[in-house]
C-alpha cells in the first residue's frame, strides 16, 4: 500500500492540475467550475496519450479502450490485472478473491447485453431483483466503457439512503482495490468523502439534487445512475423529471434508471419508451399462507406465529415485520420470554431475537448478521434467529438465512395533508407490492414460507397496488425552493411522474411566501436564494439566516443542528424514571429548544469532553446524535461563513440571553404556533385551528399560553413535540404578514391577538406621548 501512494497522487495531480490552485474542498459548490476546466484540459491530454497508444506499457490497460465501443471481454481482460486498470498499482490477493465471487453474480452473465444497450441508447431502464448485484456491478460496468476519468467526468450512482450510499461505496472500493474516498467515494448530506480523483461517486439522491442547484446541467457527470428508483423517494422523483428534461439539452449524458421488478413499464413509458434490460434475481419459491379471518391484534398474532414457527418448522431463520422501535423492542422482549418457556417446557431449540430499526446503533445492527445458534444438544431441535424489523429489511438490507417471513401488513409511513398542514408518521397498511417484496425475503437462501396475518380477501381488496410515492406524502416547501433554485419556473406543468395534489403545491408556495423566500409573483427573493444554500427545511434556514438580528446566531446554529439529527434524549423502558431525572438537570422552564441547547453546551463543556461517551451514557443522552449534531453544526457554520452571516451571541449573563433565542425561533416557526385553550388542557394551532396536546416528553410547564412547536405528531392523539413558550407580541412584531388579523377566522385566538395588538398600540402611544 505504502509504496503505491506517491505514484497515485502524482498521477492524480498530473491529470487535474487545477485542483490544488483552487482547493475546491473548501467550496464544494464551486467544484463544478473546476470540473469544466479539467474536462477541456483533459481532452487533449487524453488524445495525446491515445496517440502513443501503448496502454500496456504504462500499466494502464484502459488506454487502448475506445469509449462506448468496448465489449465484456475487453473489460474482463483489464480486470484480470495484473495491475489495477484505474490506478496502475498491482492488484491485491483480496481483489482476486472478490473478483471470483463478482463473476458469479447474475448481472455478470448479461454484461455484453448491457453494454450493447448502453451504447445504443441515452436513457436505459434496468431491472434487477435484490441480489442480482446491480448496485455494485452496473456502475463498474459503466466505468470500463464510459471511461469518465479520461474526460474529467464522473459516474454518479444515487441511493435513497445515507447508509446504503456509504456501505455500497465501501464495498465497491474494495472490489476495485482502491481506497474509499479516492477513485470511489460517496457524498451524503453533511459528509463528502470524495477526492479530485473520484470517478465513481455513490451519493444520496438528495445530494445530487443539491449539487444540481449550482450546476443545472450536471456537467461533472457523464453517466447518472438512479438506483432503487422503485422506492420513489421525493428526490428520485424530482431527479427523474430533471433528467428527462436535461437529456434533450445534454445528448452526451447517459442515464440509467435501476429498479426492482415492480412497475418497470411505468419508468419506460415516462422516459419516452426507453429500452429495458431485465436480469433475474437469485430467488427461490416462497409459499404464502393467509389467515382464515382478520386478526384482532396483529402484534399478538405475530408473536404467536413466530413461536409456532419456532416450535414446529424445520430449521431456518425468521424475519418479522413490525412498525416502530417501541413495538419492536416490546415484541423482542416478549418473544424471548416465551421462547425460553418453549425451550424449558416443550424442548424447543434455542432462539436468538434481534431488533432492527433505523435509529439502532450500527454495532447493534451488525448483530443481525450473526449466525443462528447451534442446537442445545447434538441432533436436537434446531436453533434459529429471529429478526424483528421495520420495513428497512424489506428492500435495503439483506439478511442471509431467512426462510420464514411473518408479515402483519403494516408499516410506518410518512403522510402529509396540506389542509391541516401536518406531516407525520402513521401506521398504515402496506401495498401489494410491499407485501410481495416482504414475501420474497423468505426465498433468498432456499424455498421459504411467508405468513401473512390477514386474509387473502383482505390482501386483494384492502391493499393498494403500489405504495404511494413520497412526493404525494410530503410537505413540498423545501422541494419547491430547490426547484426554484434549479430554474424550474413553471411548477404547475413540471413533468413529474406522479404530480402531487395541487393543494400541496399551493401550501408550499404560500409557506415560502410567508417566509419571504418567494415574492407575490412566485419569484425567488434574495432571502430565498440564500435559504436554498442550506440543506435544511426553509423554516429552519430562514430562522438561521435571521438569527443575527436577534444577537444569537451561535445559539440558533446549535439548535438548528440539534433539530436536524435524531432524538438526543435516550429513555430506555427499564429506566424511564432515572432518564427523566437526568433530563431535568438540563431542563429550561421555557421549553424544549432551550433544554436541548443546554444539553449541547454541557456536552461541549470540559467535564463532558473528558470522556464524552461515558458522560452521555451517564446522562441518558445519545452520544451518536450529539456527535452528529456537532458535525452538522460545523457544516452549517461553513455555509454561514461563506454566505457572510455573522456569528454572534448575547452575553450569557444578560437577562435577554434566552429571550433573544426565543424571539429568533419565532422568526422561523411563526407558522407553527399554538395557543392554550380556555379549558387549559388543550392547545389550538394558529390558523388551522386543530386541537393538540403537548407531547408528554416536553419539559414545558403548562402555564405557557403561546408556544412554537417543531413537529405536529399524529398518533392516537394529536401532539405537538419540541415546544418553547413565546409571547403573542413577538408574533405580531416578527411575522407581521402571517399575523395579519383581518385574515384570521373568528375565535379565541383572534380575540386574544386583537387584545395584544391593542395593548401594543396603547404602549406605543404612551411612549410617543412621553417624548
Amino acid at each position, binding site marked *: 500500500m505504502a509504496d503505491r501512494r506517491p505514484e497515485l497522487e502524482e498521477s492524480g495531480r498530473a491529470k487535474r492540475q487545477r485542483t490544488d490552485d483552487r482547493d475546491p474542498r473548501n467550496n464544494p459548490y464551486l467544484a463544478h467550475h473546476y470540473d469544466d476546466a479539467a474536462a477541456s484540459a483533459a481532452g487533449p491530454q487524453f488524445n495525446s496519450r491515445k496517440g502513443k497508444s501503448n496502454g500496456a506499457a504504462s500499466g494502464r490497460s484502459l488506454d487502448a479502450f475506445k469509449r462506448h465501443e468496448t465489449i465484456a471481454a475487453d473489460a474482463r481482460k483489464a480486470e484480470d490485472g495484473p495491475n489495477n486498470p484505474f490506478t496502475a498499482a498491482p492488484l491485491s490477493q483480496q481483489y482476486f478473491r472478490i473478483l471470483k465471487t463478482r463473476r458469479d453474480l447474475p448481472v455478470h452473465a448479461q454484461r455484453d447485453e448491457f453494454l450493447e444497450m448502453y451504447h445504443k441508447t441515452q436513457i436505459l431502464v434496468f431491472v434487477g431483483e435484490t441480489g442480482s448485484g446491480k448496485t455494485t456491478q452496473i456502475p463498474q460496468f459503466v466505468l470500463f466503457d464510459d471511461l469518465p476519468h479520461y474526460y474529467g467526468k464522473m459516474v454518479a450512482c444515487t441511493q435513497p439512503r445515507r447508509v446504503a450510499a456509504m456501505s455500497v461505496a465501501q464495498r465497491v472500493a474494495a472490489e476495485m482495490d482502491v481506497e474509499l474516498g479516492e477513485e470511489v467515494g460517496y457524498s451524503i448530506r453533511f459528509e463528502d468523502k470524495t477526492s479530485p480523483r473520484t470517478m465513481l461517486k455513490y451519493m444520496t439522491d438528495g445530494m445530487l439534487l443539491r449539487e444540481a442547484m449550482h450546476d443545472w446541467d450536471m456537467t461533472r457527470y457523464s453517466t447518472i445512475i438512479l438506483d432503487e428508483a422503485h422506492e420513489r423517494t421525493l428526490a428520485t422523483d424530482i431527479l427523474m423529471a430533471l433528467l428527462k428534461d436535461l437529456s434533450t439539452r445534454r445528448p452526451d449524458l447517459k442515464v440509467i434508471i435501476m429498479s426492482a421488478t415492480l412497475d418497470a413499464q411505468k419508468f419506460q413509458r415516462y422516459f419516452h419508451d426507453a429500452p429495458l434490460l431485465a436480469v433475474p434475481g437469485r430467488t427461490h*419459491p*416462497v*409459499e*404464502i399462507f*393467509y*389467515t382464515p379471518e*382478520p*386478526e*384482532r391484534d*396483529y*402484534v*399478538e398474532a405475530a408473536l404467536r406465529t413466530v413461536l*409456532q414457527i419456532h*416450535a414446529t418448522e424445520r430449521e431456518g431463520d425468521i424475519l418479522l415485520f413490525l412498525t416502530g422501535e417501541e413495538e419492536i423492542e416490546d415484541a423482542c422482549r416478549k418473544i424471548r420470554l416465551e421462547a425460553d418457556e418453549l425451550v424449558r417446557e416443550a424442548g424447543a431449540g434455542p432462539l436468538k431475537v434481534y431488533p432492527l430499526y433505523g435509529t439502532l446503533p450500527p454495532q447493534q445492527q451488525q448483530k443481525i448478521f450473526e449466525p443462528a445458534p447451534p442446537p442445545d444438544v447434538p441432533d436436537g431441535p434446531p436453533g434459529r434467529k429471529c429478526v424483528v424489523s421495520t420495513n428497512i429489511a424489506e428492500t435495503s438490507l439483506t439478511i442471509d438465512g431467512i426462510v420464514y417471513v411473518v408479515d*402483519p*401488513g*403494516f408499516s410506518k409511513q410518512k403522510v402529509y*395533508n396540506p*389542509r*391541516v398542514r401536518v406531516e407525520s408518521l*402513521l*401506521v398504515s*397498511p402496506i401495498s401489494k407490492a410491499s407485501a410481495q417484496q416482504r*414475501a420474497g425475503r423468505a*426465498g433468498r437462501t432456499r424455498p421459504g414460507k411467508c405468513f401473512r396475518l*390477514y*386474509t387473502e380477501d383482505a390482501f386483494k*381488496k*384492502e391493499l393498494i397496488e403500489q405504495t404511494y410515492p413520497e412526493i*404525494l406524502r410530503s410537505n413540498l416547501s423545501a422541494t419547491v425552493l430547490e426547484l426554484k433554485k434549479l430554474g424550474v419556473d*413553471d*411548477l*404547475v*406543468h413540471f*413533468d*413529474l411522474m*406522479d*404530480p402531487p*395534489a*395541487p*393543494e400541496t*403545491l*399551493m*401550501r*408550499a408556495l*404560500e409557506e415560502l*411566501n410567508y417566509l419571504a423566500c418567494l415574492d*407575490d409573483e*412566485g419569484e425567488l427573493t434574495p432571502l430565498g436564494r440564500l435559504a436554498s444554500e442550506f440543506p435544511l427545511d426553509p423554516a429552519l434556514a430562514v430562522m438561521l439566516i435571521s438569527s443575527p438580528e436577534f444577537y444569537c446566531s451561535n445559539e440558533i446554529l446549535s439548535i438548528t443542528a440539534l433539530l436536524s439529527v435524531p432524538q438526543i434524549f435516550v429513555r430506555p423502558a427499564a429506566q424511564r424514571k432515572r432518564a427523566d431525572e437526568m433530563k431535568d438537570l438540563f431542563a429550561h422552564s421555557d421549553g424544549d429548544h432551550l433544554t436541548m441547547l443546554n444539553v449541547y453546551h454541557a456536552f461541549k463543556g470540559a467535564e463532558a469532553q473528558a470522556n464524552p461517551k461515558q458522560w452521555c451514557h451517564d446522562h441518558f443522552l445519545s452520544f451518536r446524535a450529539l456527535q452528529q449534531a456537532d458535525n452538522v453544526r460545523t457544516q452549517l457554520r461553513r455555509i454561514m461563513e461563506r454566505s457572510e452571516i455573522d456569528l454572534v451571541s448575547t452575553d450569557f449573563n444578560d437577562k435577554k440571553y434566552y429571550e433573544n433565542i426565543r424571539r429568533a425561533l419565532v422568526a422561523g416557526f411563526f407558522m407553527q404556533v399554538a395557543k392554550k385553550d380556555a*379549558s387549559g*388542557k388543550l392547545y389550538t394551532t394558529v390558523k388551522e385551528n*386543530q*386541537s393538540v396536546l403537548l407531547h408528554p416528553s416536553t419539559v414545558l410547564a403548562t402555564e405557557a399560553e403561546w408556544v412554537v412547536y417543531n413537529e405536529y405528531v399524529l398518533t392516537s392523539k*394529536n401532539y405537538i413535540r419540541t415546544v418553547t413558550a413565546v409571547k403573542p407580541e413577538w408574533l405580531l412584531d416578527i411575522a407581521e404578514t402571517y399575523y395579519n388579523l*383581518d385574515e384570521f377566522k*373568528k*375565535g379565541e385566538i383572534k*380575540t386574544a391577538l*386583537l*387584545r395584544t395588538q391593542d395593548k401594543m398600540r396603547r404602549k406605543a402611544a404612551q411612549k410617543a406621548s412621553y417624548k
Partner: protein
Amino acid sequence: MAHRQREPSAGEASDDEDDYMAMSFAEPDSPAHKETSMQRRARRVREGEIKGRVKSKAEREADAAAAQEEALATALDDSNKGFRMMAKLGYKRGAALGKSEGARTEPIKLSRKDDRGGIGLEAERKRKLRDEAGNVPNKAKFDEWDYRDRMAQEAQERRIEGQIFHAQRMAETLDTEEEAGGNTAGQGIDSGTKPLTSCNVLWRGLVLQRQADEEEQQMRRERDRNLSRFKDCVYSADDGDSSDDDEHRNVLEAKLNDRTLFDEQDDEPEADPELEEFNSLPPAERLTRLLVYLRDKHHYCFWCKCKYPDFALDGCPGVDEEDHD
C-alpha cells in the same frame, strides 16, 4: 344552524365581550333591548354557568375530532396566495398538476390507526354490522349528504335498530310465554328445539343472530385449542410464490371456492325469503310492524312498557314514540 350563516363577517370584533357571547349564544331573532335587568342577570348567570362548565374529556375529544374532520374535508380556497401564484402559470381550479394524465387532484386521505386490529378487521366489522342491519344503504345518496346529516341519520338508524332489538326480545318473550301457557317467564326459546321457520318472522332474525354468535364462539374456542397445530388449522395454504402466473391463481381460486363452500354450509343453512323480505324493509317500518304486532297480539305498548288488559289499550296515547312525549 341558520343564524350562523347570517352572522356578519367583519367588524364584529370591536367589542370583545359581545364577540365572546356570540360564540354560543347569537340569537339575532330576540333583540337585546327588550331584556329587563332581571332577565339580563339571569341570562348572564346561565351563560356563565355554561361557559364555566368544563367540558368532559369525551366532549372535548369529539369537538377536536369534528374540527379535524372538517378541516380535512375543506379544500384550500382561492384566497390562498399559492393559488394565485399558480393561477398566473395557467392553473385552473380542479385541474391536476404536471403533464401526465390522471394525476391526482385531491390530497391522499389521512387514515389514523388507533388500535392493533389486523388488516381487514375493520371491513369485516362493518360487513357484519351491515349484515345485522340487513339492509344495504344507498351509497350514491349518502355521498351527496353533508357529513353531519349523515352522522345524524346513522345515529337515528342505530337507535331504531336498538329499539327493534328490544321490541323483538319483547315479542319473543311474550310469544313464548303465551305458547307455554303463560306460566313461565323464560327468556326466549331454546334455539335447538324448534325449526327456525316456525318462529315469527318479526323476531326470527334475533334467534338467527343468537345462533350465529354461539357458533362463532364455539369456533373461536376450537381454534384456540388447535393453535398448537396451527399449520393445519390457522392458515390456509396456497402453493408457490404468489407473484406469478395463472396456474397458481387457479389453485388459489379453487382453494378460495372450497372455503366459500365450506362457509356457506356452515353459516347459512338455507335461504329464508320471508326473513329476507322483512329485513329489507327500512328500520322504521320494521319497528312499526313490531309495535303494531305487540299491540294487537299482546295488548302491549312498547313505549308505555306495560301490558293493557284489552284491545283498546285504554290510556295509551298512541302507536308512535312521539305520542308518548
